[in-house]
């Protein structure tokens, strides 16, 4: 049993990073996630666990510090919000190309551009389809509670090291700013270089012993044949993620005729929508993708033949809905997949979602 607290999602991210044995944080403040670095600075983990915390001069600097530190096999993270993540996109692509583990947290706000500072999910496509240039993928996890903000930091690092790939926690201003009861994880020791090598292999630049060739960390490969081979290796890794790491949660799905699909904050809203719909006698359930990449398409394929339709509920103009349609199509089904969303920092109300469901499926 860990430590029970009432904390903001952003503060929990910081606390979880310290407790999971993180080596370093590099970041630049932006609303609505500034509490991550504020909390780290307040906690002074450099005195406690030796974790370094540094406010960089910009997001571009922060992501490149992350790149450098990750190359040495350190467990490092950064956090930002939508416009800041766009600035980091080039660096994330380099880190993916160099096959390095790290954690990037996006506490989303409404866009495009500087947009608003209210909660949004408009960076879904940026997170799961790439964002930066080149054929790369990140492992993307979407917490829907303050507890999961704690749990997913450690999980994201485990997956990042397992696949030598950047992982992202994709959350938003609502979960970042909200306080809930949270059971904090127990402290884990930071890994030594030897432990990293033992657990994950000797790819990091930890100093060259005479027993092996030097390790070179780079995303550059001017020989196209070799670069294609690199790409093939990346793709194989992404297919393995799809085979092994699909994560989701279901709610009242057993007898559901209609399935709401929503992640993060909108999944919380939809849980209430399911309650309202059930009171009206409608057989509605909720599927909550937890991993956005890999997208939990297997469960959608399983559900598709059993249900009358899916409603994707997102705080954007309709991004995840495309992946649901693909999953239904891949399952060889022709179920209707509809979309309801609010944009620009507006959170849909549970009642609006039920109205949208009735409008789409029940009023012919």
């Amino acid at each position: 049993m860990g430590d029970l607290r009432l904390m903001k999602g952003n503060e929990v991210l910081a606390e979880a990073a310290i407790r999971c044995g993180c080596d370093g944080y590099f970041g630049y403040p932006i609303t609505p996630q500034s509490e991550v670095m504020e909390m780290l600075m307040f906690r002074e983990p450099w005195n406690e666990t030796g974790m370094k915390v540094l406010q960089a001069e910009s997001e571009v600097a922060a992501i490149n510090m992350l790149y450098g530190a990750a190359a040495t096999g350190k467990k490092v993270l950064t956090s930002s919000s939508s416009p800041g993540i766009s600035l980091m996109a080039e660096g994330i692509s380099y880190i993916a190309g160099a096959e390095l583990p790290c954690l990037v947290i996006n506490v989303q706000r409404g866009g495009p551009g500087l947009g608003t500072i209210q909660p949004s999910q408009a960076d879904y496509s940026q997170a799961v389809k790439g964002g930066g240039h080149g054929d790369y993928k990140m492992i993307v996890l979407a917490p829907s509670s303050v507890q999961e903000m704690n749990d997913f930091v450690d999980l994201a690092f485990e997956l990042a090291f397992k696949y030598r790939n950047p992982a992202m926690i994709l959350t938003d201003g609502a979960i970042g700013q909200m306080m809930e009861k949270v059971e904090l994880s127990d402290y884990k020791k930071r890994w030594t270089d030897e432990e990293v090598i033992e657990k994950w292999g000797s790819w990091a630049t930890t100093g060259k012993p005479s027993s092996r060739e030097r390790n070179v960390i780079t995303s550059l490969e001017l020989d196209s044949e070799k670069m294609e081979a690199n790409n093939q290796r990346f793709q194989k890794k992404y297919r393995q993620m799809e085979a092994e790491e699909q994560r989701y949660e279901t709610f009242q799905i057993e007898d559901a005729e209609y399935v709401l699909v929503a992640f993060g904050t909108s999944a919380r809203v939809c849980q209430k929508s399911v309650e309202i719909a059930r009171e009206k006698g409608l057989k509605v359930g909720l599927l909550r993708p937890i991993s956005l990449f890999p997208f939990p398409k297997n469960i959608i394929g399983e559900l598709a033949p059993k249900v009358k339709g899916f409603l994707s509920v997102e705080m954007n103009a309709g991004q995840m809905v495309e992946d649901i349609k693909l999953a239904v199509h891949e399952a060889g089904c022709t179920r209707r997949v509809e979309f309801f969303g609010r944009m620009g920092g507006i959170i849909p109300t549970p009642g609006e979602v039920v109205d949208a469901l009735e409008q789409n499926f029940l009023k012919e």
Partner: protein
Amino acid sequence: MNEELIIAGFGGQGVLSMGKILAYSGIMEDKEVTWFPSYGPEMRGGTANVTVIVSDERISSPILHEFDTAIILNQQSLDKFEKAVKPGGTLLYDPNGIVNPPTRKDINIYKVEGTKTAVEMGNPKVFNMIVFGSYLKVKPILKIDNVEKGLEKSLPERYHKLIPLNLEAIKKGQEIVDAVNVV
């Protein structure tokens, strides 16, 4: 038990901290809680509000558009949230600065002379705890022992000497509730 509450007023009135103390008190009573504040430009405009949910069950949406109870501390918030109280729900307000008092007939309305009482107690800062006391009188969802524990948890240790004063304010608040409309 599932209490969905909004507290709304000016920044500096202790809106967010009242919500935090309520949430902590809920945890002490082994309830599920969420605390969701307005943040950013809304607050810089002078108004602050926080949605608090205290429940026996796992809480679904932390963001609400109608409430069991509204605690209203200024006119702007009254204008915005009177209509958001569920029929049969409860509205508490401090009449200080209120030009147009609440008019709904389908909800319970209570007036709390919080500002005035705080001045009489010689400490305007305990204003929010007076109002909180009135709330606990009208909606006794938590035991006062757990509220005391909630205060201990949410206040930094250097302020623990102020806990007796806060408890006194809560007690005072319980005494001064004035029922305006009861359904």
